[in-house]
């Protein structure tokens, strides 16, 4: 029998934590991330926000794309792939880095963990395998294997996240430093834990074998209760990462491989990621283009905006004296700040904090388009860091 295929047919798979997460969902609001569905909201924004910002939030990050890069040349391969210095990353440490195409445009953002001398794990939000493979051509000893589906990842973030892990009996995490990772045994289950900062909170990535996923989830929820732990969905994560000034691919910038229009891709400099571009380390993909800074000056910049009113205005047009100068890319009401915060792309001469701008956006109100205008001001980002 011929099964009719629709052009949008793709794979869907449950995260290893799906069953457990579903039992916590009061809203049944899910969304797609790669091949997975994950919770957008479990309960209410207030409850989840409060858990993450004052106690601990449990986040299913299993859809993260995970690639193991190994072999004698893995180190030199990564040093060529990434804009940040990868070759002096010690074992059991992690770093963040953009990676670019030949033209120096950002393809994606990665977290790199060095696991052994010749083994690394690379986490990205999206699948960039084709590029990773292309870049590996010509090396004799680099193996690339994707293990996205073989490992579930939980994020545990917030003030009390360390207490929760200690309560589970993983006391050694007390000595784990930021950007370090290690393997720990918990109820005879091996989990790799990375201590890191995300969304303005200290916390951990826990790598869990899918066959132990329920055990780990349930134990965390049970032991975490005393510390105010609650599962947190994508919506609240988004608010928190905007508050922390963290960019999201597809929202705040278009990856070089997704962009179809010539002026859409961005250099790391335009995204404010200069600290992760090591032009001095020697050659890496895109370095030639990026070091020609005088010939390709940054045309845009990513800034923080404080916007009047209460509505999030994602997609709003930013005007200065009536001229279009940028676009709001991510926007949310910030409970912590008590006003609307936004990340925006603006023409590079509008980066100075304090600049007054107008946001214009339109909605369809009772089938009539309605144009709104709000005052906004450029402010320093991040908006909020929880003292980190």
């Amino acid at each position, binding site marked *: 029998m011929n099964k009719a295929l629709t052009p949008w047919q793709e794979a869907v798979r449950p995260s290893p934590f799906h069953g457990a997460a579903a039992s916590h969902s009061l809203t049944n609001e899910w969304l797609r991330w790669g091949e997975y569905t994950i919770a957008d909201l479990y309960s209410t924004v207030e409850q989840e926000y409060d858990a993450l910002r004052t106690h601990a939030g449990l986040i299913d990050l299993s859809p993260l794309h995970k690639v193991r890069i190994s072999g004698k040349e893995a180190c030199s*391969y990564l040093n060529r792939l990434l804009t940040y210095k990868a070759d002096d990353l010690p074992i059991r440490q992690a770093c963040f880095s953009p990676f670019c195409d030949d033209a120096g445009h950002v393809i994606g953002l990665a977290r790199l963990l060095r696991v052994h001398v010749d083994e690394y794990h690379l986490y990205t939000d999206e699948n960039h395998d084709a590029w990773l493979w292309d870049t590996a051509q010509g090396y004799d000893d680099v193996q690339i294997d994707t293990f996205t589906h073989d490992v579930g990842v939980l994020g545990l973030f917030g003030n009390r996240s360390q207490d929760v892990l200690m309560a589970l009996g993983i006391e050694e995490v007390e000595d784990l430093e930021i950007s370090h990772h290690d393997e720990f045994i918990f109820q005879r289950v091996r989990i790799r834990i990375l201590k890191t900062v995300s969304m303005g909170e200290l916390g951990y990535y826990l790598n869990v074998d899918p066959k132990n996923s329920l055990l780990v989830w349930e134990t965390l929820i049970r032991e975490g209760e005393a510390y105010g732990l609650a599962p947190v969905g994508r919506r609240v994560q988004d608010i928190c990462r905007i508050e922390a000034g963290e960019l999201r691919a597809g929202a705040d910038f278009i990856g070089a491989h997704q962009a179809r229009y010539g002026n859409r891709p961005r250099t790391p400099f335009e995204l404010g990621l200069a600290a992760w571009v090591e032009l001095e380390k020697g050659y890496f993909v895109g370095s030639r283009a990026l070091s020609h800074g005088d010939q390709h000056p940054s045309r845009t910049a990513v800034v923080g905006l404080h916007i009047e009113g209460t509505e999030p205005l994602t997609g709003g047009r930013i005007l200065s004296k009536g001229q279009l100068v940028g676009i709001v890319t991510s926007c949310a009401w910030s409970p912590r700040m008590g006003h609307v915060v936004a990340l925006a792309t603006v023409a590079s001469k509008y980066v100075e904090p304090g600049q007054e701008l107008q946001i214009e956006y339109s909605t369809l109100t009772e089938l009539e388009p309605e144009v709104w205008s709000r005052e906004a001001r450029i402010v320093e980002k991040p908006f909020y860091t929880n003292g980190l």
Partner: protein
Amino acid sequence: MINLLSRKSKTPVSVTPQSNGVCDAVIVGGGHNGLVCAAMLAKAGLKVTVLEAQERLGGAAASDEIKQGVRVSTCAHLVYALDEKIVKGLRLHKHGLQFAKARLSTVAPDGEGAVAHLHADIWKTQAGLRVLSESDAAAFPKFREKMQTYALALKALLTNSPSVAQQSDLGALEQFLSKIQILNEDGRRELLRLLVSSSGDILDETFENELLKGALAFDSILGLNSGPRSMNSMAHYLYRLSGEASCDRDGMAIVTGGMSSLADALSDAARAHGVKMRTGAKVMRIIIQKGAACGVELEDGERVMAPLVISNADPKTTYLKLVGVEYLDTGFSAQLRALRCEGVTAKMNLILNGLPTFRGLTQEDLSSRIVICPSIDFAERAFNPVKYGSFSHDPVFEIIFPNLHDTSLTSGSEQILSANVQYVPYKVEGGWPARREELVEQLVMALGYFAPDIKDRIVSGHVLTPLEIEKEYGCTGGHWHHGDFALDQIGILRPAPGMGAYGAPVAGLHMCGAGASGGGITGRPGLLAAEHALADLRTSRKSGVRAI
């Protein structure tokens, strides 16, 4: 300190000669283009070292004794596009370059008694063509003239002159389009049409005689991995004409003493300008520091440092092997890997105990270039098998008897038949060592149709398949052009889109071989690379920084 003042710019290029064996430019490969480039740079005052892997200089411009007392050109055998600027600029005639015969005619027999004659002189050709077709004879001069006009208009685009290559490829395209403004509107349309046409179609619409069309089509495919019905054949025809236009005086010529004499003249000229040349010096690595080339490393680990490295090796060798992907952008290296450079032209030298008889040709005709390509279909059929990993049973040939013009080549009464043969694939089903004998037999048999007594006259022979050319001359794929001459691999797209041939992407590294702007014994890639390197030097000296 030497001050170089370019005629055009008033900015002096100051080159401080370096001590301790460090030179200003090191050239990887001493093929004829490497030698041209070296000599031109040295002439401009640079200290230049050429490092050649083989034991002799000249690359595919080579000759050798394949039998005692018999000397043949082992690869290229005819010069038809050696740039006048080089011959004059390096005073090659003073350095020993001689043509045993210039302005060679072409004869194309059909094997059944008819012959098309193409002479360097258009009007003589026209007179001869009347025997084949009155209307073709009438159309010929106009066709030639028109093609020459278009070839010249195209030259800038097809050969990546420095002014073009310095810009981005798209900028170069704009410049090209503005250049062809000299043609009227219809002319520009026609040029663009020709560029994407097959020579088969253009010849079909112009002429009626199959033999004439075959003879003309031959030049559109020689050295190419395509047939006369392939889209890029017309562009290649124009490329070839644009080359011929640069050596109008001599036309097609045979070098006295064989092709290596050209290499000798070039190396002599280079030496006179102070170029150091080393043979048996295989470069294993181009040294990159801070993203820029700064020297090379030889097999034994010896390093030769220079702020300018110019490679005569083919693009794949240069970038993927000598530079290495760890210094290349991912997109660029993917493009280079995709560069098609498998040759289909084989070389055959036969030593004969006397001159053979070609059906329809007189004894006198044998001193011309003999083209075996009786029709467009014949050539297209010959092309078919290589698409599927096999060789032609009825190939097309370009044959000369060099010893008829140059008695120094043989000591006895032997005759030399030197032939370029198509189509012989780089990779053959069953593998080359296994099928080589079959190929040789087939080539002799195919030739036997046109020259029935050839088999009985063979004393010995020497055949090189593209695979053997690759080994012998160190060019990936053994391709005539170091990379197929196809619409997506020529002009500003050569050797890779966006690369602009001579400069990018590795600072301090230039290319000077056929892969940069097209093959043939033209010397033009070498000349343009030298011009480009000097222009670059001038700008970087001016701005005081070296671009990465």
